[in-house]
């Protein structure tokens, strides 16, 4: 039976001309990709690609069928969109939140979604900025709060919201007196940062700013703020966070003088011609919720 996945494999291989690249584009590994192609070719009764060393090329049969495969995939996408619009339980708003969005701010945006569209069902996922941007582009998410700056090709975006950050510093390093500190004084321990690939532009801006104010102070990669806070409690790292609620015993909270490392957030959503797109005035309302949660 012809499946959506076979068509995805066909189109991705034609675009990438490389098994590994095509597998990455679809988000599967190479063995199922090869197997899917073999099955599709058996189904079609013709070879679609010539396999060369490290590279593949469309056969005449593949070239002839490719436009049909693209059209079929587009039609399936449209079907998915139309199907979700017919959902009798009301509009579903799928919201994505970057992990840097403080819990209370994410909650405020989700609540605003629910308030803005009567009878809507709101579902929320957390994922890194780069993944959220892709999912919004692909129409799998209706909107997302992501880090700025990020590459937003063809997406709509609200204003940039700046959130002040605090330094969470082990009391062993600095007394828990709540005093505002200059970033340059945060020496002696590395600052916890999340992996760069999650949001390369925003992370580089953070790291470049850090390097300007605090040369040689060092950083340590953590998977999330929970890990960062635990490392701070263990006296191993300093955490920079916009989240007013993040706290642990043995860790003091200090404002940073001149707020050199604000977290920049932005709502992104698909262009209005996309099926199921929320109206522009709703997006303005939601951007407001991000600004003043």
């Amino acid at each position, binding site marked *: 039976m012809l499946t959506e996945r076979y068509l995805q494999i066909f189109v991705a291989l034609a675009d*990438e001309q*490389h098994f590994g*690249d095509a597998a*990455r584009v679809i988000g599967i590994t190479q063995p199922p990709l090869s197997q899917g192609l073999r099955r599709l070719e058996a189904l079609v009764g013709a070879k679609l690609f010539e396999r060369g060393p490290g590279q593949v090329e469309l056969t005449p049969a593949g070239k002839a069928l490719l436009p049909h495969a693209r059209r079929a995939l587009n039609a399936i996408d449209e079907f998915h969109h139309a199907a979700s619009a017919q959902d009798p339980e009301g509009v579903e708003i799928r919201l994505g939140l970057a992990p840097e969005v403080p819990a209370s701010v994410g909650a405020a945006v989700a609540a605003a979604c629910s308030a803005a569209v009567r009878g809507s069902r709101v579902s929320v996922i957390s994922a890194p900025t*780069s993944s959220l941007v892709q999912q919004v582009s692909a129409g799998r998410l209706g909107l997302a709060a992501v880090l700025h700056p990020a590459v937003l090709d063809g997406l709509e975006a609200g204003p*940039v919201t700046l959130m002040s950050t605090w330094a969470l510093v082990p009391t062993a390093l600095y007394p828990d007196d709540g005093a505002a500190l200059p970033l340059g004084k945060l020496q002696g321990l590395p600052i916890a940062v999340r992996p760069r690939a999650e949001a390369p*532009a925003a992370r580089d801006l953070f790291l470049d700013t850090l390097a300007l104010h605090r040369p040689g102070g060092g950083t340590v990669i953590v998977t999330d703020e929970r890990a960062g806070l635990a490392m701070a409690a263990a006296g191993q790292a300093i955490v920079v966070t916009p989240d007013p609620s993040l706290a642990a015993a043995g860790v003091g909270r200090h404002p940073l003088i001149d707020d050199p490392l604000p977290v920049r957030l932005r709502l992104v959503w698909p262009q209005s011609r996309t099926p199921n797109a929320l109206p522009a005035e709703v997006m303005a309302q939601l951007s407001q919720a991000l600004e003043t949660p």
Partner: protein
Amino acid sequence: MNARIRAVFDDAGARGWLHAISLDRPEDSVELDADVVVPIASVYKLPLLAGFCRLVDTGELDPCEQLTLSPESRIPGPTGLSILADPVTMSLRDLAVTMMTVSDNASADALLNKVGPDRLAELLQSFGLEHTRVRRGAAGNLVELVRRTGASDPDAAFAVLADNDQTDPAGVYDAANLSAGSARDMTLLLREVWGGGLLSEGQTAFVRRSMEQQVFTQRIAAGFPHDGVRIAGKTGTFGALRHEVAVVTLPGGDAYAVAVFTHAARGDRRLPRVDAAIGEAARLAVDHLR
């Protein structure tokens, strides 16, 4: 290949567009959204040069004609005549060299006035560049930028673009408002010039030489750190846009036309990672075509 090139741009925090061809086998290509029309910033100086050289070939312009540019009539810019204090008298062809080697805005505007935007549009059409539009020179662009940012002068306007804490004003990077083109158009132009079909032998050599003498090496040239590889390029930079189009000639003589356009997520004036990504993407594309 596309996924690998895309990953290079993703990692640098930029959106990228690319087209690369082998000059000997133009049917071999690497493409990443190569037909999307993008604001080309100072890369417009290359089609302008090609148009100027054609008018020299047809005898409509005299390359040795002397032009005096006074400081008050020259527009601001980071290089070339734009930063000098006194009147400068130069020939049209020397203005062209200044425009290409250091991307001098004052020289480019003077040449564009000589060629004329309408005459240039007709020439580009006749060259087969269907998506390339040279709307106005740098002076017009600066006026437009100042208007859109609501700033008081060009420096303040560029500061708005460079600020990561605010949203870009609407339309500042809109291809419809600026000189624009596609990556495929640019490699077509390079291929036609290098092939000798567009210009006389003398003017062909002039274009090639002025592009080989370009002083900026942090983009495509940085992807080929070997003196044996010759790069003839023209960069373009405007706010978050960073571009270069070039012909890369390998030691054996094999040559490739590459056009790389980028739009960085960050606004900062200096983004060495994006410059390097342009070189890396060009390198990946050329290696694929070899």
